[in-house]
């Protein structure tokens, strides 16, 4: 399967590559993968990773080993919105267990699963650096802090209702 990136993405990839010395093009791998993952429905297929390898003139294995090391890259399809709830100490003592349980019940899925309509994926993650504003979660580039049940209802409605009446 052929993988194509938008002109905009290619422009961004070139801007990133220019930040490193010419002979160190491979240093652009992490930021380039962030750009690419957004282009390809939020996850990286082997074909996509191979394409990145050819752009950066490295071996495909060098991309695979990086993708599987870092938690922000997905190698399997995910929902349109990946909800990542922080569950480490400071969030835990401020009630993250309840936040996770509430979302599980509300979305009818367990942590690690995606709703059947492919809209939400629920993940429990480790510290996101928002301990003073706990409990919190991240969706894409957005942080949602000081969470309450009402706030969760609002977030799910706001995002989900764009795609389905269910939310």
């Amino acid at each position: 399967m052929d993988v194509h990136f938008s002109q905009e993405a290619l422009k961004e990839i070139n801007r990133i590559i220019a930040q490193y010395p010419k002979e160190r093009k491979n240093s652009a791998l992490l930021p380039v993968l962030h750009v690419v993952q957004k282009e390809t429905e939020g996850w990286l297929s082997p074909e996509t990773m191979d394409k990145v390898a050819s752009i950066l003139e490295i071996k495909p294995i060098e991309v695979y080993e990086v993708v599987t090391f870092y938690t922000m890259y997905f190698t399997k399809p995910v929902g349109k919105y990946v909800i990542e709830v922080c569950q480490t100490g400071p969030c835990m003592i401020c009630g993250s267990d309840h936040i996770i349980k509430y979302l599980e019940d509300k979305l009818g899925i367990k942590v690690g699963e995606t709703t059947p309509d492919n809209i939400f994926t629920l993940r429990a993650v480790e510290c996101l650096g928002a301990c003073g504003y706990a409990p919190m979660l991240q969706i894409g580039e957005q942080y949602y802090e000081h969470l309450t049940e009402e706030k969760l209802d609002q977030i799910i409605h706001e995002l989900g209702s764009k795609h389905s009446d269910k939310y």
Partner: protein
Amino acid sequence: MGLQLLLEHINKPEIETIDGYIKHGGYRTLDKVLGKMSPDEVTEEVKTAGLRGRGGAGFPTGLKWTFLDKSTDKPRYLLCNADESEPGTFKDRLIMQKIPHLLIEGMILSSYALGCRTSYIYIRGEYMFILRILEKAIKEAYAKGFLGENIKGSGYSLDLYVHPGAGAYICGEETALIESLEGKRGNPRIKPPFPAVSGLWGCPTIVNNVESICTVVPIVNMSGAEYAKIGIGRSTGTKLISASGNINKPGVYEIELGLPVEEFIYSDEYCGGIKGGLELKACVPGGSSVPILPKHLLLKESNGNPRLMTYESLSEGGFETGSMLGSGGFIVYDEKQCIVKNTWTFARFYHHESCGQCSPCREGTIWLDKVLYNIEHGLGKESDIDLLWDIQHGIEGNTICPLGDAAAWPVAAAIRHFRHEFEYHVRYPHRVKDEDHVYQPEMNYRTA
């Protein structure tokens, strides 16, 4: 509010823009330094100031700079460590989000002192929204001629870029950060060679925390000697503390080093006391890696003197009765919190974040996680407590980077100071097996 060197203007309107920042005295150090002071003179100011690395290790920043290998023709690099991932720490984020030009100004001064032509800010991938703020601010700085070729006609040139990580705590370790910037897995390197000799792309490299680099700005403004007068002894200056947990006013506070811990917790200027009128039970004063302390050891040193927010006072008594200032990630626990559960979440964190290179850490962190899970969920045995002690002992000091120690210390401290809670869990498993594993206050007390 005490002396504010970093956060003084944080709430001023438009401080995030370059014009707003300049209006409040920003970038005036460039005129003072570029072309007027030699790079070594700047380093000397930082040394005189006694600034210690604000990322957690507390190593003197100026001294670190002097290790930079200047004997080669290779380019030199300054990397700003904005990977901020230590649980309990969220201070660098505040600066970068609200007052990004302070970091850029600090990067210019520090890069000048080190003779770098190109520098990078390595920011954790989850902070992508802050990367956008920084890139916007960097663009503004280029437009004003504060970055790029021949800055303000001084003959000094600097390019500054931001590089995102992708969700790996280990990349806060400086050699792992370098690997990650080179486009690889974040596996720490064996030292020596130290980055100051062979770092990014084999070139001499210095890695400094965001707050350390920002602090160079007030040091240059007021002089190193004046800066050194703030604080107590070898803990000079101000420090950002990220306060979280069961307190009335969580948030980031800039304190003068030397503030009593008790005042920090109970004063309305800072944490504002324990939430809901509950009692203080324990505190992790410097990020999840440092030992947890029960109330009586937290507030007083072993000699009975009040414990202070300094590198020395917080570590007084060693790990037997003390802890560390670390990154300033100050996590407060009220009397209802379960230390076993908290320790388990930390162990799970280190298990998740171990890079897997060293066997003691790779295997040990999994084991700690599993045993603590069992104890927390009512599946533990009495012998598990000693087993935990043995596992953490087997990890500590036996790995090439400090993640192993960071995984071992919280477990050791929890058993050292709260053994009775572990015993309660294994002796009364049915009481901890309830539906939501909600902690019962009675677990606080020694139960025969």
